[in-house]
């Protein structure tokens, strides 16, 4: 059904020459003296599953509503497939939306709910019902056509909402916290279902979420938002391994942050002094001046923990305060001399001999290239 190769595989944003499907240019939305969205620009490519990720109040839902046509931007323009959508009402845009609460009409059957939009467009009843049946089969609800929404589980209601949103064959589908109301197991299953449906139909999805695990699983690219601005855009791996700021580093996954001043910079390494862990050796980055304040972001899985000191570039002593056993991995909270707590995760398969446990004196080690140096 998809007319071109799947965006997740071709990654058009890397080429630099591909034409973006959706251009958001300098969009702002101001309510009185409160700026909800502050000069946001984004290019999104056809067939992407793009996630807007951020905490509450960061402006992601407002941005979504502007894309849908429920809010008018105070400034800026939005272009979808070459068409500037300024002034175009929501029902006439090539977009559709799946709501957080599903917004199913409770007095209508599943079939009627899904077909409603088509019938309002003037599609003849027979044709509308045939397309409805097809769509229900796609979301695996073929046998539930005659049921009412209150007779379905949360996950099934969500699939009806998805079918209803997709049946009008929108070019862009907007999803507002689609997995928020589901329990963990169902969320995992639904994540892959969403990807499957998106790839088979070739529709561009923009998902708004505050759940970074969801964003990391679903998306081709993530746009992290904070206080109305886009802070970083990139593939999940890039956002995780190379955050561009303390905010992004802290928001995605867990991170240990050290702050210090640039001391010595050599071609292959750099020393940062004055951190809570003393002097640290890391890989240098460009554009630094002497004594500049920088942060080092270190992911817990990059630190190894041992009873004896190692010869790694960085090795500091610590005291295990807490161990959380999570089945597949263990999370250690280690206190170091300055009082700071460092989080270390270790896969339980990698443990040899006696596992390290509470109140042990240990050494934390990592290489120069394990952390990321941040200037903001």
């Amino acid at each position, binding site marked *: 059904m998809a007319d071109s190769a799947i965006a997740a595989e071709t990654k058009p944003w890397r080429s630099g020459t591909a034409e973006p499907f959706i251009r958001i240019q300098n969009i702002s939305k101001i309510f009185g003296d409160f700026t909800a969205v502050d000069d946001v620009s984004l290019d999104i490519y056809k067939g992407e599953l793009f996630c807007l990720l951020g905490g509450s109040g960061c402006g992601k839902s407002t941005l979504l509503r502007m894309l*849908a046509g*429920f809010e008018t931007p105070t400034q800026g323009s939005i272009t979808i497939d070459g068409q500037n959508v300024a002034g175009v*009402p*929501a*029902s*006439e845009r090539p977009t*559709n*939306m799946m*709501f*957080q*609460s*599903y*917004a199913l*009409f*409770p*007095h209508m059957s599943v079939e009627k709910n899904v077909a*409603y*939009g088509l019938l*309002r*467009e003037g599609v003849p009843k027979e044709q509308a019902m045939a397309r409805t049946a097809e769509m229900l089969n796609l979301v695996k609800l073929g046998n539930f056509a005659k049921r009412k*929404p*209150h007779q379905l589980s949360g996950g099934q209601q969500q699939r009806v909402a998805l079918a209803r949103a997709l049946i009008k064959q929108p070019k862009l589908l907007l999803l507002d916290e689609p997995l928020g109301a589901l329990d963990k197991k169902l969320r995992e299953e639904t994540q892959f279902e969403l990807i499957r449906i998106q790839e088979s139909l070739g529709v561009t999805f923009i998902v708004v979420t505050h759940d970074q695990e969801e964003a990391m699983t679903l998306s081709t690219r993530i746009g992290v938002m904070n206080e109305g601005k886009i802070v970083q855009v990139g593939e999940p791996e890039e956002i995780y391994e190379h955050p561009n700021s303390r905010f992004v580093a802290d928001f995605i996954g867990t991170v240990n942050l050290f702050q210090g001043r640039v001391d010595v910079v050599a071609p292959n390494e750099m020393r940062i002094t004055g951190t809570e862990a003393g002097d640290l050796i890391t890989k240098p980055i460009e554009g630094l001046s002497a004594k500049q304040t920088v942060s080092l972001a270190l992911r817990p899985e990059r630190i190894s923990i041992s009873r004896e000191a190692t010869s790694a570039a960085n090795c500091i002593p610590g005291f295990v305060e807490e161990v959380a056993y999570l089945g597949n991995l263990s999370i250690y909270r280690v206190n170091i001399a300055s009082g700071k707590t460092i989080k270390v995760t270790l896969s339980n398969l990698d443990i040899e001999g006696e596992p390290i446990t509470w109140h042990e004196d240990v050494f934390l080690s990592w290489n120069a290239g394990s952390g990321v140096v941040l200037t903001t």
Partner: protein
Amino acid sequence: MAIRWSRWSPQIALAPAVIVTAVAFIGSIGWTIYISFTGSRRFPDYAIDPERWSRQYERLAKDRAWGISLDNLIVFGIGSLLAIVFGFILAAMIEREKRGEDVFRTIFLYPLAISLIVTGIVWRWMFNPSLGVENFLHQLGWESASFDWLSSAETAMYGIILASLWQSSGFFMALMLSGLKSINSEIWSAARLDGVGVFRLYIEIIIPMMKFTFLTCAILLSLGVVKAYDIIVAMTNGGPGQSTWMPALFTINAYSAKSNIAYASAAAVMMLVITLAIFLPLLLLFIWQQKRRKAAVA
């Protein structure tokens, strides 16, 4: 001993209320039904003549005034349904209006604070050709204006309906408003995306979702209609002639003017039958809707 007391104390605490209800409410209903089969006149006469047990009801069936009362009940009932319609329209308009909701809601609810007697009297003045609206329009220059509904047997009932609508629409508006607010805001957005026109939106989506609220309003309205008394007395006292008689007025009249307790009791029993005939089906529908609602939420 202490444990035994606490086991029964809820029942003991409720006992006075239950006894009062049993005596005053159920007991008096039973008494009224009994008396309606007797020949009591000014004072209760507890003897029932087995061959003439239904004489009060036969007399009722032949009484023209009772026939008029029942007709007026139907007319008043249908006319009062407009209170629900107006209530809904006002509520929908207020709900769409972002600002000024509190102001409008207060304004429309004010009439409810006025007793039916006062409402009746004020509207009687308004219908008075030399004091009220008609006089006002004549003074403005509209000489042929006529707003004298209460003086004609054909239109008097409509005057009463108008006054009653003025008084009660605000109440139904308040109920409808809370019903409207309980609708998830995303439903409105979803309908907007489907490009549904305003009229269709309300008829096909919003009103069906508010079945529960409409049912509540219908039950409350029907109770008010059957009981209508004060507004009739204040506005027309049953006139002109007997054209605005209603069952409650008939019953009181049978007792106070005709001093016939048995006849009045028969009329009262018929009112009870009418109330149950309207109320019970609505109540059952209400309970059924509530069960469906609970099933949906669970």
